[in-house]
């Protein structure tokens, strides 16, 4: 039997604190479209990076046509025939289509670029893909869909045999998706193997020949599309048991505290309305890019909203900028602590004090004693492990960093607490502490909106679940106890 075009077996990859890939097996035949699916964090991105040699695996092998591939750099992987089209396209916007296609491997004679030859070759490649793009156009004038095709053309000009597309349809309209599928069909015709990474199961079922499912960094199943179904794929994606990691709590739900009315910011958030009551933890879930984080940013004034209104305890509040939202009693623990939540190079006390200087610095004059007393209080209450109050937060563990962020907002006495992926990058023990804290805050009557991709976390913590897809709330689950991950996934993948 002939060796498959690509075989990856037993791929392992560890990052500090995370075992990202725990043995992934994957095969791709020439002229085949393989869908790679999995929950957020299942390891798809890391696997792609390993294939493209942007990351080196700790164990496992990659074979092309049965011959082991040793690629130390992305450039080497490219020469071996692997082309990866990332979600963020890698085109030089100010250069023409032709120049981008031939960037780094131009057609030259004695060191001179053969512009006419390049232009003709580019036109031929694009025509072969059945699209009408002017090779002389500047890339930034093209739509995302057209830029994608330029990347594919570039891959072809490099004689790629394996093309990987990471969420290629995330930013495309339905008509553009159809055109992209036409291009993928053309690639199949030429015997190129395509790995299609997507959350959109309906597209996967339409375009793919086979599907491989990843979960927790390992391959959990693979099947020809014809022999599987949407339900079967979802079950494979989420099929892990709900662990007993969520502390129980007394729920005492009061009046609506945060009411959001038709909040919009095209195209990320469309007409989002919901309420969170005092003492309630509401989970806002959905896939990456569904508009969860964007909704939180609108509520907090981090981005301006096109339309909609936010009220707290029955009063309409301004959220034009974070300062206004904070004054109204909203706080946000951002998804990305390191770049948005904290000033890493500064000390714990400085970070803690930043939103609270009205209290710690009456008339603008700092009273460091007041600040450190308050900080000590929270350090004890939240069990933050510090060497000193002036320790740079960059040197703290993820869990302790998150506690510092939490402390600064608790000091601010926020009524509405929005947490975006509160346990991302935090080890299991610290996770439980964070869950305890969220429960305790809810018990104090705060309204908590928890954004999370981790379905067990959503099911374990929330009193109510909101699911977003494509900028809209597509479902609400009131009876969390009876809900399943399948149910959520079903709403999330629409």
């Amino acid at each position, binding site marked *: 039997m002939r060796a498959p075009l690509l075989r990856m077996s037993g791929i392992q990859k560890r990052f500090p604190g995370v075992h990202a890939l725990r043995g992934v097996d994957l095969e791709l035949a020439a002229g085949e479209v393989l869908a790679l699916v999995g929950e957020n964090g299942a390891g798809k991105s890391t696997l792609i990076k390993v294939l493209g040699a942007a990351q080196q695996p700790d164990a496992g092998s990659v074979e092309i046509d049965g011959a082991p591939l040793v690629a130390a750099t992305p450039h080497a992987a490219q020469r071996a025939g692997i082309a990866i089209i990332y979600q963020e396209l890698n085109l030089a916007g100010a250069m023409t289509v032709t120049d981008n296609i031939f960037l780094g491997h131009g057609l030259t004679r004695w060191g001179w670029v053969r512009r006419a030859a390049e232009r003709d070759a580019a036109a031929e490649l694009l025509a072969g893909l059945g699209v009408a793009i002017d090779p002389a156009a500047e890339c930034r004038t093209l739509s995302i869909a057209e830029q994608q095709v330029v990347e594919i053309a570039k891959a072809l000009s490099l004689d790629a045999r394996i093309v990987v597309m990471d969420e290629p349809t995330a930013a495309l309209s339905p008509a553009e998706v159809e055109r992209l599928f036409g291009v993928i069909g053309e690639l199949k015709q030429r015997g190129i193997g395509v790995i299609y990474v997507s959350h959109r199961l309906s597209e996967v079922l339409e375009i793919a020949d086979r599907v491989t499912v990843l979960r927790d960094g390992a391959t959990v199943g693979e099947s020809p599309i014809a022999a599987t179904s949407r339900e079967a794929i979802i079950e494979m994606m989420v099929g892990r048991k709900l662990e007993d990691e969520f502390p129980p709590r007394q729920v005492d739900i009061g009046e609506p505290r945060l009411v959001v009315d038709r909040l919009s910011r095209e195209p990320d958030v469309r007409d989002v309305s919901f309420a969170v009551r005092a003492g309630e933890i509401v989970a806002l879930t959905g896939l990456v890019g569904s508009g969860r984080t964007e909704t939180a940013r609108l509520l*907090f004034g*981090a981005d301006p909203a096109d339309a909609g209104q936010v009220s707290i305890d029955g009063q309409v509040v301004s959220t034009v*900028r*974070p*300062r206004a939202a*904070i*004054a109204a009693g909203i706080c*946000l623990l*951002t998804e990305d602590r390191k*770049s*948005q*939540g*904290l*000033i*890493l*190079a*500064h000390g714990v006390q*400085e970070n803690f*004090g*930043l*939103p609270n*200087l*009205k209290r*710690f*610095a009456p008339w*603008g*004059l*700092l009273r460091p004693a007041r600040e450190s007393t308050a900080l000590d209080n929270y350090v004890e209450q939240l069990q933050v492990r510090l060497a000193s109050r002036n320790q*740079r937060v*960059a*040197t703290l563990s993820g869990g302790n960093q998150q506690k510092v962020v939490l402390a*600064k907002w608790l000091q601010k006495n926020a009524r509405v607490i929005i947490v975006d992926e509160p346990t991302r990058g935090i080890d299991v023990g610290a996770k439980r502490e964070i869950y305890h804290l969220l429960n305790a805050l809810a018990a104090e009557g705060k309204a908590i909106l928890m954004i999370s991709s981790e379905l067990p976390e959503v099911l374990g913590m929330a009193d109510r679940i909101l699911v977003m897809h494509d900028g809209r709330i597509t479902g609400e689950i009131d009876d969390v106890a009876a809900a399943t991950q399948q149910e959520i996934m079903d709403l999330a993948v629409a």
Partner: protein
Amino acid sequence: MERAASPQKLIHFLSQFGPLVLLLLLCLFFSMINWREQHPRSPAAGARLAEAILADFDAEAKADAAFVVLAGHGEEDRAFAEAIEDRFRKGDAANVSTFAGKPQEIREFLDTVVEQDRSVAAVATNHRTGSLSLLSEKALRQRHEIFADVVVRQPPSYRWPIFLTIDNFRNLLNNTATIAIIAVGMTIVIITAGIDLSVGSVMALASVMTAVSINSWYGGADATTWGLYAGAATGIAVGALCGAFNGMVTTYLRVPPFIVTLAMLMIARGLAFEIATTRGFAGAGGAARSTPEAIKIGAEAFGYLSRGRPLGIPLPILIALGLYIVAHLLMTRTSFGRYVYAVGGNREAARLSGVPVFGVLIAVYALCGATAGLSGILDASLFGGRSTAGELFELQAIAAVVVGGTSIAGGEGRISGTLVGTLIIAVIETGLNQTQGVSPYQRQIIFGSLILVTVVLDQLKHRYTSGAA
């Protein structure tokens, strides 16, 4: 284990106090290489000289012989001579003749001494006067027999580093005051991860506007004290406005500070020239629009700002020192200071923590402009309104800030560091000036290398400290 920790401690110490150590080493270095014969001429030296002379004579000689004190003209020499005479009299010398004046007058005075016809035991003088050929012992003996046994004495000279004199430090500090003031504003701007290239030009504009406003709005030669205050306020306000404009363009219009302030560098300089040529009525050559002359400020009293010496310390030094203290307190003890560091450390995180980022940035650029304005009025006080004031000051100020350990990447830096940085640059400049055989071009090379080395060290320090974290 302590042994292993000590290089770490050393590195920590150097990263904290490195610039200060460098400053002290430079002072030491320049003190070592440039020596000069020092000839004391203070009243104290005079008194010691008188004591030494008296010790050589017995009571009889003191009663009979004459003692002559001679010094050059000028305040200092007179005080010197008086101190000697005073001492002689206290030491029971009966016949003391004292004179301080020009050589010709001294010659005439010697004739009056001869007329007294009393044998002269000793002539006490200082180095300058004592070097006159008519005062050598031989010349005196030839002049008249009363000088037959004369000894001519002056305070003993000694070698002393040129650098280590009060005069030198006073001049050094006074000359660097304007740069030092601007460097304060520049530090704050750089802590926000910004830059202000316009300070030199804004300083010139402020200088010109101060002069013009005093001359034409606040009373000219008859300006009251309040008129002068108003002139100074105008200069500072002009600077603050230019800065606020920089700040608004860089925040609301999202133009990088490098570009905005580069534009302001040209605009402010152009405005300064334009105003100086059209309004500078003091300059007689107003017809030639090439380089306008400094606009003389009608009110003499305004010169006090740059020439005044309360407590013997030049006023610009006191102003700069006061500004450093205020700025240090502002940056370390107020919420504004915290906001400035936060904006520079992580602008997005600061915004999401409720810091009014735009307001902070506009205030910071306005402050920086105001310090340029303050330097401008000092310049106007010394030279009159100069449209050529502050050329390349922006680069010198940036150099001072960087050498003082403030990171161009923003989020960290200290006002005290900038003070040391400014002093380092001033010390090098002065020291090299005093060193024979170093040309201005070589000085530039040394400066450039110094800036490069300090920034590289800063980078290494960053790599080291983040690696250790």
